[in-house]
């Protein structure tokens, strides 16, 4: 029975989307972790003789610079690898932070209802009246540039995503008789929340977490694009895009490559989230089992 149980719980690994998602995210994470070993050059090393080299395979390319160089002669591949470090750090830290705040408030609001729900609901209303980009810019102005500010800003902006979506799910679960039954057999509120409600909302929470990681990557790119993320002596994908915009006509590659990096990373997280939603969602699950 134990083996069968394991099989059922791990069924999501069989989904194609999850496999591709895990693979893409895995690649990006390894790039981030092993950047110092993988990068052929120092990402900040400037070489003003070899600026704006195209990738190695096209005419005029230099095999020493596999993906070419930027306007300051820095190696694009190395900068991409180091950029993955910034992106992944922000993605993981910010999304877990946002998840902790957002899902805690969602469970409190959905479970207790009444005044708690009202208060949290109004806070979400206030937050939602700010477009996320605008709010994060305002926060970044207050917090000052830097990677920890980026993380904090994303947490403070995106907790509402978790709160809004999860609250609805908690409400659905709360209405189930088994939650009332748990209270009637003597469960404390804490035990009811953790043993009866949380297991039901967990699939959605994990899915949201995966999608939020993609969103965090995008927001970090936006903030570094407008020059508010990492300092000038560090590589970030958004910064690379901003630099490449200046030499748009000379080298399209410089623009395309960091965009591709962002896209692939976000795609990985989205596929993972989509696949998890399909395999973990109990409603979809039931429909499939019938």
């Amino acid at each position: 029975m134990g083996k069968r149980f394991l099989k059922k719980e791990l069924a999501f690994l069989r989904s194609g989307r999850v496999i591709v998602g895990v693979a893409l995210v895995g690649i990006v994470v390894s790039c981030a972790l092993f950047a110092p070993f993988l990068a052929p050059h120092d990402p900040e090393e400037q070489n003003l003789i070899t600026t704006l080299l195209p990738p190695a395979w096209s005419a005029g390319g230099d095999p020493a610079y596999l993906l070419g160089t930027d306007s300051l002669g820095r190696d694009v591949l190395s900068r991409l690898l180091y950029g993955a470090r910034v992106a992944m750090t922000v993605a993981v830290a910010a999304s877990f932070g946002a998840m902790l705040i957002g899902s805690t408030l969602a469970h409190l609001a959905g479970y207790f209802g009444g005044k708690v729900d009202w208060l949290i609901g109004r806070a979400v209303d206030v937050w939602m009246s700010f477009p996320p980009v605008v709010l994060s810019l305002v926060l970044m102005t207050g917090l000052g540039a830097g990677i920890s500010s980026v993380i904090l800003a994303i947490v403070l902006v995106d907790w509402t995503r978790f709160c809004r979506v999860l609250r609805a799910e908690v409400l659905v679960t709360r209405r189930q008789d088994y939650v009332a039954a748990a209270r009637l057999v003597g469960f404390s509120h804490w035990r009811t929340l953790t043993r009866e409600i949380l297991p039901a909302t967990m699939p959605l929470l994990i899915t949201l977490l995966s999608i939020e990681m993609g969103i965090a990557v995008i927001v970090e790119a936006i903030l570094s694009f407008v020059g508010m993320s990492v300092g000038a002596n560090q590589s970030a994908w958004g910064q690379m895009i901003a630099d490449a915009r200046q030499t748009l006509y000379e080298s399209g590659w410089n623009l395309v490559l960091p965009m591709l990096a962002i896209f692939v990373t976000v795609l990985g997280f989205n596929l993972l989230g989509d696949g998890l939603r399909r395999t973990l969602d109990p409603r979809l699950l039931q429909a499939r089992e019938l």
Partner: protein
Amino acid sequence: MTSSVLAAENLAVESRLHDGRRLPVLSGISFALEAGKVLGLVGESGAGKSMIGRAVAQLLPPGFSVAGGSLAFAGRDLVRMGVQARRQLLGREIAFIPQEPLSALNPVMTIGAQFGEHLARLGITSQMRRREEARAMLEAVHLPRAAELLRQFPHELSGGMCQRVLIAMAFASRPKLVIADEPTTALDATIQARIIGLMGEMRDAYGAALMFITHDLRLAAEFCDEIVVLYAGRAVEKGEARKLLSSPLHPYTRCLQLAVPSLSAPERELFTLPGEMPGLARLGALEGCRFAPRCPNVGEICRKEEPKLLAVAPSREAACFRTELTLAIETLNQAAPASPKRTAPLLRVDGLKKRYVSRRGLFGSTDVLAIDDVSFAVAENEFVGVVGESGSGKSTLAKLIIGLERPSSGRIELCGQDAFDRSEAARRRRIETAQMVFQDPQSALNPRRRAASIVTQVLEAAAPRLSLNERQQRAEELLAEVGLSAELGGRYPSQLSGGQKQRVNIARALCAAPKLLIADEIVSGLDVSVQAQLIALLHRLRRELSFALLFISHDLAVVRKLCERVLVMWRGKVVEEGLTAQVFATPQHPYTRELVGASNTGRIANSE
């Protein structure tokens, strides 16, 4: 043969699984329905009765298909008919009356828009004439203010009104065949009786043939001319309706008849069929008669060979080798339950009121009194029924007593102590004294817990340090108490049948050995044979464990079977109270009289 509106010959439906296996959902179904007649298809859920209606429309669920035999409408083959040709018939010559009237009308379209669309399809081009015709049809089904109704949306109508609208739409095209799939199951008893009457009236007026699909044998016997009884995808008995009910030939029909509690027949025990009807997945592997494992008259031959549906008497057919033994199946007369000794009341409710505030429009808000000054008491070991229709406040009453909601005013005492003391000690005390069994096991059982873990939830809260072994042991005791094998403890609710789920539901409430059990509609929505099993279970538990029961139900006959005292609720008030036998035999309040009258449909056939 030529006069048949709908004729099935050896009809078979099968379901194809993902792995390519084919399961026979229905096989060997034959019948002929003539104009102006009513054919009843009777069976418990999963017997395949709805598949026949769906096969007519070729709207079978995905993976299901007609595998053999023929189904002909007025001599035209429905199975091999093209999609377009069949769509021409639907809504014109073949009409359907649905099970859930409230959800069968489009919520964002007015009644007029939906009726108009239907009439336009029937070829009435002028909008004026469409409105006229719709109004005439709505008046034909006795709906008042028809013109106004056409401008309204479905959510502004009651379930009964929606069903009348749908009946009017069904008969608007003067169809040759009307198929009604459990058309009254979702409605209250008093409305149910009127809808059945209306369908009969419409059938007479328009001369259509009617196929009536239901789980209710008595209702079918009263309303239909001929009945086909289905069991596990097979027709087990077919015959003239009244005779079929008064002297069944197949043991399954007989058992069904004896399993239904009655409001007027002399007190006798309900027949409890062991086990359950085999599910779809097991149908393919069965040998011999499908009913044999549960049949009280089972013989050697039944397990080897499958009986065919054969004529036994004039216009009577049955698929059984031993029909002569069927009527010998009997139940014992029930001894009147010994009235428990009057002790100090266990539960005492005094002047209870519950007011809900509902916002209406912009500024106004109206109060709804869900419970209006209710007082009563329940003694130890006493079984008390609470009856009433939907909206009478009976479920709210249960929630108030158990503490899921707080009353607006009034007092509830459990064992002489105020139940609304908000202290933790009082909460503990209430948990130990009173427990509740919820109506819908689908929602009442956490789908992520195993049965053994669900039934011992009380221990998890009260004694979290209990070892797994001890907990497992208690779980097995409890499961045995409600008649489930220990092996089922390892299953998740989704792997249990409806009846098994409800047993787990009851077992959880019993774990704390409460003095008072509150049960909200715990047998409604279950098949009659499962319902009879649960009633028997409650009887047995009462003898073994001793507890009081507050049994909330809309089904008067079940309450009569189970409870010695009854409260009748109407619009939040208790309008009548007394000994069950007395209240139902000589109801005093006009509402009780109406309720008893509506519940007695089927009596005619029964008393023959």
